[in-house]
């Protein structure tokens, strides 16, 4: 699904170049649930932008579902984005003057889907995230958790191969955060690749694989041991994660 080899990226800061990604090799298979962790400045947001075709990179190779993503025009990038990637942002980024259902339907508008069809599809997805009764509400009338669920519905509406979530729980309280994570886990269970960028260990813990980034390189790439849901030994696995300095 995602193949990164030796990705480098630097930003120009006045006369200096700030190397943000310094040779990333990473492979994510279709259907994985992955979290990318790292402190601020580790390059995790940049990596996410590269993955989401929101930003270009300087050298290396990024293949998304076999397609080489490099030096694309904005128009081409937009096409690929709308076909492969659904975004979820920390601050939701819903369009404030559109109702929930209109927000969810927007990606389909840019894919040229007919109005009736996309509204039906958006309504389905709102129902799926448990907001069927909120479809005609504006984002300003909703709680943070509800907004994020609308955003997730919007990310899903175009049936992307991959959901990219940038700190999806960053603006939410713990209980709501877990609800959102459960929703993302459900989506993953349906076969969608989910990549979550976070700095919260307990959020990362709820994924299957954790990729730790430090100073622009992958420091650690580990599976999260999965225990049978009802196993009382669940706590045993936690120290491996808790030992993380983050």
């Amino acid at each position: 699904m995602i193949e990164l080899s030796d990705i480098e990226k630097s930003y120009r800061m006045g006369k200096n170049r700030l190397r943000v990604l310094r040779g990333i090799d990473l492979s994510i298979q279709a259907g994985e649930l992955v979290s990318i962790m790292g402190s601020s400045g580790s390059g995790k947001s940049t990596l996410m932008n590269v993955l989401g075709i929101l930003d270009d990179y300087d050298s290396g190779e990024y293949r998304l579902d076999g397609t080489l993503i490099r030096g694309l025009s904005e128009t081409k990038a937009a096409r690929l984005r709308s076909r492969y990637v659904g975004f979820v942002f920390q601050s939701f980024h819903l369009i404030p003057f559109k109702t929930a259902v209109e927000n969810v339907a927007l990606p389909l508008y840019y894919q040229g889907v007919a109005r009736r069809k996309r509204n039906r599809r958006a309504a389905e997805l709102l129902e799926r995230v448990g907001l069927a009764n909120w479809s005609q509400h504006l984002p300003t009338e909703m709680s943070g958790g509800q907004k994020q669920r609308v955003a997730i519905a919007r990310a899903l509406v175009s049936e992307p191969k991959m959901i990219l979530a940038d700190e999806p729980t960053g603006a939410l309280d713990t209980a709501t955060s877990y609800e959102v994570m459960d929703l993302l886990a459900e989506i993953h269970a349906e076969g969608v690749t989910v990549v979550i960028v976070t700095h919260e260990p307990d959020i990362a813990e709820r994924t299957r694989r954790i990729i730790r980034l430090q100073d622009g390189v992958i420091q650690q790439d580990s599976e999260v041991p999965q225990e049978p849901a009802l196993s009382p030994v669940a706590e045993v696995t936690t120290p491996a994660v808790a030992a993380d300095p983050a």
Partner: protein
Amino acid sequence: MFDLDTWQEIFDTLRHHKLRTALTGFSVAWGILMLIVLLGSGQGLERGVAHQFRDDAVNSIWVSSGKTSLPHRGLQPGREIQLTNDDYDDLRTSLPGVEHITSRFFIRGRNTLTYRGETGNFPIRSVHPDHRHLENTRVVLGRFLNAIDVQQRRKVAVIGRIVVDELFGARSPLGEPLQINGVVFQVVGVFEDDGSDSEMELVYLPISTAQRTFGGTDHIAQLMLTTGELDLETTNAMAGEILDRFSERHRFAPEDRRALSVSNLNAEFQRLLSLMDGIRFFVWIIGVGTLLSGVVGVSNIMMIAVQERTRELGVRKALGATPRDVVSLVVQESVFLTAVSGTLGLALGLGVLELMAAMPAADMFRQPGVDFSVALYALALLVLAGAMAGFFPARRAARIRPIEALRDE
């Protein structure tokens, strides 16, 4: 490109930015409104001035005679100079530059007109057919005098609207016998004059008929001729030529202003033309200025609007909008807004002009009106400006990578 969905998007955005929409709409509508009112008033002023000078300032030369005041070649001053048909014939046949020429003969005493017992006193002008070009006489019924009337000394008359009203009432005067000082004339035409009512009290007769019937002479009182498109210098030369010829024939000193008055109205005419040009120029300068300030206003608001929406446009891009989608959204929005409010301003402006036109005409201001195509051009220009004002900032916004637009910091 303009499908229902696009409209929906446009309406959504406009509805949710009411203040901005209102301000942009207002500045466009106001600009067009002011422009229309200005152009219309300019025209009103122009027509008012033209009306004021309508009788005095035509491209013509007027000749009339008086008494000599200077001795000349042994002749005493105080001698009466009398113009005759010979003078008319001379100018008509051999003076270069003459466009239309006529002479006038006045009938002495009161002129009593009678038709079937109805009687009235009206002034009479005995003229050549070309006279109508000097007074802008507009024939509304029948015909004006013609060359054959003059040649055959026909007893025909062309009468003004007021004469018709007073003597004929509702009856058509065409072909009717009209007694003028006891002599029967046949009415062949009725005229109106845009200038003033007193012009419409006139009766025109063929000059030859009047000379024979009422005076038995070949005298004429006045000679008038128009000079067409000739410039001031040429017409001044013509006036000099007339003075030279007449002083030779009638034996008076060329510098004797009392003996013969040759007034060249072209000078006034030129002054009027340049006054008109001045008004037109002034109106255009202000009009262009008004339009320009409208354009600047629209550009300003659109620029701020796009800046304000950078994040929203970034979200749209992350959701799959191409740069083209983003640019066309903003441009269509701004074109739609300027077109609608511009049309509104146009309609309002035309309404204001209607109101102004309905008020009684003042001395220097009448019949304000606007060239509709000019108004449409102005509207198109403003819409174009609106499109550009949307296009450039939108293109810049579309180039920004979505991450920059979406950055939380």
